[in-house]
């Protein structure tokens, strides 16, 4: 019996070891492979809306490319739900079965893949294609790892604003906050007037995690999260404490709708667009529903937005806030060949103009975004903000922290805002979580 068990154990370990190793002999910095272009089907594992602009345009470009290269096709496998996508990606990476192209943020997990040479050097690739200088520096910076290396190519450029309902603010006798610190008092006033201050998608957890990043970004700049994730900075530091206290204050002032933790993306958006909630924090990807005639006429003329407020003594400027270039696309080193290279050259050159024509902000500056015919004046105002951005950007923390700490932070934040734990408990739990989990990812 023991012998049998031992044999099975050895077999199990061998099978896993074989799955973990193998493959990936190519060189990540060899961006222009030589040889014949042999058309075949290539796959892109991605996490973008199934009928969104990126997918529609890439499908069209792939069809155009296939006309000159019979036998070529681009298989798009999308999982828009981000947590499910990440699980899929990580499982495929563990099985060493990643396709030719795959989406990822600049997460610690992705950095490990890059370190193992599994992702093509995107900076070299873009320079080789002659398109590198077209990209907005901040769109590329968003995709970079801490060491400055670039392995993902952006397809979007978004700005995150706090949208608000002018009539509701007026009804409560409050105005647009000048400082982040004004927000809790503003919520109290709105609640008194019977208005839900902020609509938030609590179910997906990242929207609440944005808020915890704001105070440290203003107080200590973008470095804070870079240090925090490695355990070099702590929640018990002044910038961290400011954030923790502020989150607690938001909760005490009942800033978010009742039962927000079990409400989803569309619930939150409905609350704002139906005129029940005064504020809604979301990016320019929602311009088609917030700044066109699709928006409920009752709130259309009352809708406006403001950018992330600063604070007293803020080290970052008012024109510096969250400006993500979305999830990036990585190119798998193992399957990178003349075909993939040639297709990317074809697609990346043509993509920006097609994308800008849909009314979205291109990650490049060589094209002008077309404002749709049904847009409200707010649409143009939002687009123009992209030309007036500072050098620093607030990074979403969910792309920065190691996955275990990130999961714990998302859970504890809900408890902190709901008043189920004290700021002290939150601080010690989170500092312990970082200390326990960060070393494994940032060796």
């Amino acid at each position: 019996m023991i012998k049998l068990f031992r044999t099975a154990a050895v077999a199990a370990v061998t099978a896993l070891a074989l799955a973990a190793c193998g493959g990936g002999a190519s060189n990540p910095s060899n961006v222009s492979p030589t040889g014949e272009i042999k058309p075949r089907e290539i796959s892109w594992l991605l996490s973008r809306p199934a009928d969104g602009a990126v997918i529609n345009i890439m499908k069209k470009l792939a069809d155009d490319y296939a006309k000159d290269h019979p036998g070529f096709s681009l298989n798009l496998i999308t999982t828009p739900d981000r947590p499910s996508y990440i699980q899929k990606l990580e499982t495929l990476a563990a099985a060493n079965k990643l396709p030719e192209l795959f989406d990822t943020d600049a997460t610690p997990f992705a950095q490990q893949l890059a370190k193992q040479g599994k992702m093509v050097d995107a900076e070299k690739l873009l320079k080789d294609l002659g398109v590198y200088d077209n990209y907005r520096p901040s769109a590329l910076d968003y995709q970079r790892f801490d060491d400055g290396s670039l392995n993902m190519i952006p397809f979007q450029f978004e700005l995150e604003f706090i949208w608000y309902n002018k009539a509701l603010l007026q009804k409560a006798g409050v105005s647009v906050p000048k400082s982040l610190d004004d927000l809790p008092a503003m919520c109290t006033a709105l609640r008194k007037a019977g208005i839900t201050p902020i609509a938030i998608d609590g179910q997906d957890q990242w929207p609440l995690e944005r808020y915890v990043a704001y105070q440290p970004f203003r107080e200590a700049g973008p470095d804070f999260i870079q240090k925090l994730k490695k355990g070099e900075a702590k929640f018990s530091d002044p910038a961290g404490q400011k954030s923790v206290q502020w989150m607690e204050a938001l909760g005490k002032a009942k800033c978010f709708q009742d039962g927000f933790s079990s409400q989803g993306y569309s619930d939150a958006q409905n609350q704002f667009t139906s005129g029940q909630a005064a504020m809604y924090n979301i990016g320019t990807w929602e311009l088609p529903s917030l700044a066109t005639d699709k928006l409920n006429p009752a709130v259309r003329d009352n809708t406006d937005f403001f950018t992330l407020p600063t604070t007293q003594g803020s080290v970052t400027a008012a024109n510096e806030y969250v400006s993500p270039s979305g999830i990036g696309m990585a190119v798998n080193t193992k399957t990178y060949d003349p075909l993939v290279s040639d297709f990317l050259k074809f697609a990346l050159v043509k993509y920006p103009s097609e994308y800008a024509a849909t009314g979205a902000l291109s990650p490049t500056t060589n094209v002008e975004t077309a404002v749709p015919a049904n847009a409200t004046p707010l649409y143009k105002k939002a687009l123009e903000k992209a030309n007036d951005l500072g050098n620093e950007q607030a990074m979403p923390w969910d792309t920065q922290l190691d996955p275990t700490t990130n999961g714990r932070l998302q859970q504890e934040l809900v408890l902190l805002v709901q008043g189920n734990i004290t700021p002290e408990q939150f601080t010690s739990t989170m500092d312990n979580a970082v200390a326990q989990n960060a070393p494994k990812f940032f060796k």
Partner: protein
Amino acid sequence: MLPNRSRLSVLVFLLPPLLLYGAAVLFPILQSLVLSFFSWNGISDMEFVGLANYVRMFTGDDIFWRSFFNALGYLAICLVLQLGGALLVASLLTSLSRGRELIKTLYLLPAVISTVAIAFLFVRIYSIDPVGLLNQVLQWIGLGALERPWLSDINTVLAAVSVPEGWRFTGLYMLILYAALLSVPLELEEAARLDGASRWQLFTKIRFPHIRPVWITTTIMATTYGLRGFDIPYLMTNGGPGQSSELLTTYMYKTAFTSTDFGYASTISVFIVVECLAAVGLILFMLKRKADA
């Protein structure tokens, strides 16, 4: 006793399913057992860490214990609803003379609805903004003070995610127990009634002892399903708020596929296997002792 030749043919026919079972069930369990001694994130080299994962699980992981006790609470609520509810409905059914089929079908209906639909349904029922069914009913009957966001309140969320799972399978166990109750010999019941037995005595002395073997099976089924419960809590709250509705299964899943800590997740899964085996052993032991007594 079968003659030799037919014993051989029985073995020949039993072997394929046994091999399949070994490959699909036993091998992964063994594999988890092996992995639980390693630290592995899926893309790094596997590192042998001995019992470190077990030490961490039992002594250094507050979420593990929290989810263990949550899982027990979840199990208790599921069992009361599924077995208690099922036995009650089945007993009442036997005394009905008309409409049995309709009621049976209605009770069984939730068991055939997809889990995702049930989860969404109950998210709406518990909602406070817009007001869901539960809060609305409380308001109507004058219990407005009890209104709350059931899934966001850390004191109610565990019960709130357990109820749909219990409700869902009540009909299934009801059907099994109802079939067993039908097999109770009528002449025995009649004799007892002539001797002046009350309904309660009839139930405890005649009916229940008769369905005991079926009761044991359903208890084991419900317990192991309850211990493995995953989908409804995962879909409704993802374990939150905080860890208030985190079960061992959802915690294991997150550890494996979100934290990519496959070694530690295997350690938790080994614990779940042992826990299920222990639960079944305990049930058999208790019910057998009672039957012997």
